């Protein structure tokens, strides 16, 4: 059924349709509307049987999900930003134990400076944890990816993280097609756990493993991710047959025919990127876009194939490894090494900085001219940075940089001196 609803609500509906049995919640913006939405459905009895557990921290939220999943219950939670970092130890643990928990991450920057707005630093910080990571481009994607996530997680016994841009998607009202309970029930079988705690058949889960087998345990986790590389496109195809929407898969190519320049990105920014690319295409410039839906496992082969024929690739991403390079950028470079294209990495949209079509157009033109540096920052106010560097140079106790910058841009009144 077509409905005009908030992205968070769409996700709450999708999650409820998947009949989770234990939902754990600890509030953090911009995830709150999702868990509130699921919570009210449990409390009203619409989603039943389901236990909705209000916990004291994200660390507990993921722990409760582990306990529930190991008892054979379908478990769901959601978080963002500081919350994801607060539960990081347990995020790794869930993957290490191979428990098929599904979690929404409403992507948000990480402090300090504290910032509630969107970027991808949170999800990127746990990219090596062993979770599958799917990125939604629109609210319809977010809704559909959640339904696929439960099936994928449970088939492979691996936890799945569905990432959606905080506020940009979670708080946007858009038209979405919400499937019926019958449709989802027909597509998603009930949870048949690979390992379960059962008094009639006692097992020990989470035993200590030393050097004699640790590598193999980790390698098996890698193998399961490689299996996901095969299974994800198959599931997307099955999903399309059942629901009539071709959403999901590893990558989503856009106007790649004959494209000499390709922009690669994750998440909602793809919409603006496609608009900017359309405008250039109209001017006869062969440019295309490659959206990455599955970031972990990393679809290196699918990306390399999609970029076959491109002379230059611009990777736009909302996170970076400070002191190093872009994260998606590095992965894409590796995937295309020896296969031709020059890869330029552009960091954009940190802490909610708007990524405008104008700026993207300028970036694309520079990419086409091959005049972009290997790593650059979109719309960086270099004057602001220079002034702070000067202050730090001239004065030992220059004070907190964040506050100095705000004073400089006029958000905080200048010090009376």
């Amino acid at each position, binding site marked *: 059924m077509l409905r005009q609803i908030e992205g968070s609500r769409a996700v709450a509906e999708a999650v409820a349709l998947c009949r989770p049995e234990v939902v754990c919640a600890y509030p953090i913006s911009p995830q709150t509307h999702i868990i509130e939405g699921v919570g009210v459905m449990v409390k009203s009895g619409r989603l039943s049987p389901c236990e909705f557990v209000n916990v*004291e921290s994200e660390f507990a939220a993921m722990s409760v999900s582990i306990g529930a999943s190991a008892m054979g219950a379908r478990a769901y939670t959601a978080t963002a930003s500081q919350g994801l970092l607060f539960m990081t130890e347990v995020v790794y643990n869930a993957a290490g134990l191979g428990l098929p928990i599904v979690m929404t991450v409403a992507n948000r920057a990480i402090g300090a400076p504290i910032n509630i707005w969107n970027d991808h630093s949170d999800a990127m910080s746990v990219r090596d944890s062993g979770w599958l990571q799917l990125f939604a481009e629109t609210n319809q994607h977010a809704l559909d990816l959640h339904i696929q996530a439960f099936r994928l997680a449970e088939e492979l016994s691996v936890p799945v993280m569905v990432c959606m841009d905080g506020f940009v998607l979670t708080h946007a009202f858009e038209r979405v097609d919400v499937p019926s309970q019958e449709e989802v029930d027909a597509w998603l079988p009930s949870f048949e756990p690979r390992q379960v705690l059962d008094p009639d058949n006692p097992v020990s889960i989470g035993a200590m493993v030393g050097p004699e087998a640790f590598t193999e345990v980790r390698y098996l986790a890698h193998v399961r991710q490689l299996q996901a590389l095969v299974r994800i496109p198959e599931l997307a195809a099955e999903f399309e047959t059942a629901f009539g929407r071709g959403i999901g898969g590893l990558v989503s190519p856009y106007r790649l025919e004959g494209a000499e320049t390709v922009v690669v990105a994750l998440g909602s920014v793809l919409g603006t990127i496609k608009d900017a690319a359309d405008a250039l295409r109209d001017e006869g410039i062969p440019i295309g876009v490659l959206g990455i839906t599955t970031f972990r496992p990393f679809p290196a082969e699918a990306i390399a194939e999609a970029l076959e024929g491109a002379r230059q690739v611009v990777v736009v991403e909302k996170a970076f490894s400070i002191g190093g390079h872009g994260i998606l950028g590095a992965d894409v470079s590796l995937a295309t090494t020896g296969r031709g294209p020059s890869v330029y990495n552009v960091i954009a949209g940190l802490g909610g900085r708007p990524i405008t079509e104008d700026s993207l157009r300028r970036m694309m033109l520079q990419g086409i001219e091959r005049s972009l540096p290997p790593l650059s920052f979109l719309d960086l106010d270099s004057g602001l940075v220079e002034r702070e560097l000067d202050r730090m140079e001239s004065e030992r106790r220059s004070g907190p940089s964040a506050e100095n910058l705000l004073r400089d841009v006029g958000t905080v009144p200048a010090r009376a001196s």
Partner: protein
Amino acid sequence: MDDQQVKFYQVGSFAVGNRLLDGGKHTVQADRARSNSLTSGHRACQGCGEALGARYALDAAMRATEGRLIAANATGCLEVFSTPYPETSWQIPWLHSLFGNAPAIATGMAAALKVKGRSDIRVVSQAGDGGTVDIGFGCLSGMFERNDDVLFICYDNEAYMNTGVQRSGATPPAARTATTEAVGAEPGNVFGQGKNMPLLAVAHEIPYVATATVAELHDLERKVEKAMSFRGARYIHILVPCPLGWGSATSDTVRLARLACETGVFPLFEAENGEITATSKIRHQVPVEEYLRPQGRYKHLFTPTPRPEILKKIQQLADRNIARFGLLAGSDEAELVGAEGS
């Protein structure tokens, strides 16, 4: 169990041996049909109080639940010595996740059982003192506050033993640990710090709280079985001497646990819904020195220079426990430790 009058004592303590009791009152451990939840072959040190405590407590819980028990376990000695891959000593369904989340893991298990309508299967969660009073405290307090249907057992050996005997929030004053060495003006752990976890549990007003030791088997088993008769959050804090961390003889584990009670250092009590309902009386108060002297962690109180002023402070703490919990008042035979109704 009903009270049983017992007239004579021959066991060198005030505990009553199985031989003196009616058959129906024998301990779970004395029953050949006990479940051996934590079975032999594990890697605990000789004389490990924690291994004893876990076996006693879980076998009693197994009997109380007719074998329908699931356990969550925090990181620590109990986890490490019981499950070196690919072996396990656990004969019950058991899950280890992390050091600080055992109470929340159990909450998830209980929630799953509730949603599946499996009220026959019960959940215990267990940790050392560090996993309970320090790193697991937030999750434990949350589990208590929500009154989740979990029995949480703390095996208190008064330090982080698994990592090599470092101080925890349950380490007593003056005790030497690797991070409170017996050097300087205030050797060992300082006075005036630490958490009284059993009383913190009582303050959460959960259905049942009890303290116990590995010296009083009847008492420990009775408390576990009683805990399993309640629904909601329950807490049992068991003192489990650790020969390695305490610097004590491996044969002294049970004796030290008993002395901890008889000196007043470790009061035994029960509480229901925030009110203390029972205490185990001390028949003859033993001076703390008898408890401290056999323990290497207190060696600096006796040699090379005796430190009577520190002993005095520890004695005062024991006396305070005795006064606070009324441990000496009106003791009579029916209230003897281990003789039921205690």
